[in-house]
């Protein structure tokens, strides 16, 4: 049985707005195995994106532990978190978030500019990542010259290029038509199955969740299954 890549214990997140307190996550505990493709489901406001953000190290819990590959990300400072994210997590967003003035190749190269890799090594990695998502022939295209599905696949290549073990995707098919969504989900599924990547995907679409190896449901900040 695969090791646990994510271990969450008694995680809580409370947002304070004036005198009102909103509980986003309530004493949540969870384990995610390496290589899993986990679909995180739930209605709006259930806390699934908050959970994803904490696992990815872009948000902090109010209480609890979140160990990712043995590192408690809640204990890292801003600078350490930035380095950790660069080396250990790949992000895929709902709205792709590519830089419009950069080509697909340059967008994918962005995380590598922080590394000590040579130009040639960076180029090789970028081409390999674009090849994995089937867009090697679109490397010189600007985002506006690509379809939505292609843009999201470029975003997946950008998430992959540093070779992280963990990919987090927040509603990656939310802005896509069904055909493009199938393509993107297929890529994520393949990364989990063949490359051994752990994929955590937030979705409220059961069809998308069906591509995952496991689904969990959140409601009012708590797991329901």
């Amino acid at each position, binding site marked *: 049985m695969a090791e646990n890549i994510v271990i969450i214990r008694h995680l809580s997140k409370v947002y304070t707005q004036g005198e009102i307190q909103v509980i986003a996550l309530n004493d949540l505990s969870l384990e995610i195995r390496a290589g899993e493709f986990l679909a995180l489901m739930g209605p709006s406001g259930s806390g699934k994106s908050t959970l994803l*953000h904490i696992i*990815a190290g*872009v*948000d902090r819990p109010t209480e609890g532990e979140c160990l990712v590959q043995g590192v408690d990300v809640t204990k890292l400072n*801003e*600078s350490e978190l*930035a*380095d950790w*994210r*660069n*080396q250990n997590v790949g*992000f895929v*967003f709902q*709205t792709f*978030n590519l*830089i*419009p*003035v*950069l080509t697909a*190749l*340059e967008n994918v*190269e*962005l*995380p590598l*500019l*922080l590394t000590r890799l040579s130009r040639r090594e960076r180029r090789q990695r970028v081409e390999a990542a674009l090849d994995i998502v089937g867009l090697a022939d679109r490397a010189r295209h600007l985002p506006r010259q690509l379809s939505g599905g292609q843009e999201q696949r470029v975003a997946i290549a*950008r998430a992959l290029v*540093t070779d992280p073990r963990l990919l987090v995707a927040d509603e990656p098919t939310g802005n896509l038509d069904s055909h493009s969504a199938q393509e993107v989900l297929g890529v994520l599924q393949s990364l989990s199955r063949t490359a051994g990547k752990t994929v955590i995907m937030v979705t409220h679409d059961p069809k998308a969740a069906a591509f995952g190896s496991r689904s969990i449901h959140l409601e009012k900040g708590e797991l329901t299954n």
Partner: protein
Amino acid sequence: MTIAGFILKNALRNKRRALLSVLSVAASLFLLTTLLVALRELTLPAEGAGAELRVAVRNKTSIANPLPARQLPIIEHIPGVEAVTPFTWFGGKYRNEENITFAQFAMDPAKLRTVFGEAKMNLEGYDAFQAERMACIIGRMTAEKYQLKVGDRMTLESTIYPVTMEFKIVGIYSGTPDDRNMLFRQDYLNEYTGDNGQVGMWWLKVKSADDMPRVISAINRAFANTSAEVRAETERAFQLSFISMWGNIKMLVTLISSAVVFTLLLVTASTMSMAIRERFRELAVLKAIGYRRRELYAFILAESFALAATGALIGVGGAYALFTYGDVATLTHGLFPTFEVTPKIVAIGALVAAVLGIIASIMPGIAVSRMSVVEGLKTLD
């Protein structure tokens, strides 16, 4: 792709805005450079070669009061004095012009080359100036302005003396900091005015810089407690006494320059804030994929700096090219004879641009640094 390439692409993503911003910085820095050059020209007249050995002697009461011609042999015999010449303001108007458009002074032609050695003129000019009673020499700029040449005659109506005098141009000189003056013979002036035994001032040259303090002191002492006490001072000190009259203009130009810099700062800061504000989500994404606060701030600073530096290159560089290779003296009818963009002024322009680039990046830099990834991603959702 390189980091520099990334910054450049970001800076040029809205080309029209980038162009307008650069042009506004360039225009402001051009104006600032122009003001600084004008201020320098008004307040710090360039020193000519030999100025460090020249002494101006004027009436202690006022420069408008003349000095007795009998002082000459006393000054000449002071040890360290090489040559002395009278220097009498004529205040003549040329060609019925309303104002005095160039200065005229009566002097001893034999002392011209010794006292004002930086004036370049052909030998015939020097010889004729000494030989011909009506001779005068004029600066290159005045000759060009009025299209005068050697052999021409010019008539000047004095505003000091009740005379109108005719002169013959025997030489055109150049090489002084202000090639506009007209010089003629003191003895010719004396003929017209009836030789009242007075001169306007004395200008003299000392033998060495070491002699300067002693000679000045000796001259002042020599005429102390006489009916015509004098004030001897270096040429530089004499010029500075005139500069003090420009006090208010100096303050005005300084105020305008400050307003220009302040406006420039607002324009640049506003441009940078807008440019960064519309990229908040992208910056949040960069943060998410591992870019730290300092790296994001470096991007913003570099972009802001590039904007200011390009503006400076065009604005200050344009001013340098225009004022160095253009004929400002002619354009301003001789008001600004040199209008030189000095290395110091270029440095001030570059420094203003650099400070501008840094200050304009501070507010957006702080905003990006404070932004959390989650907030940033939500901003434009």
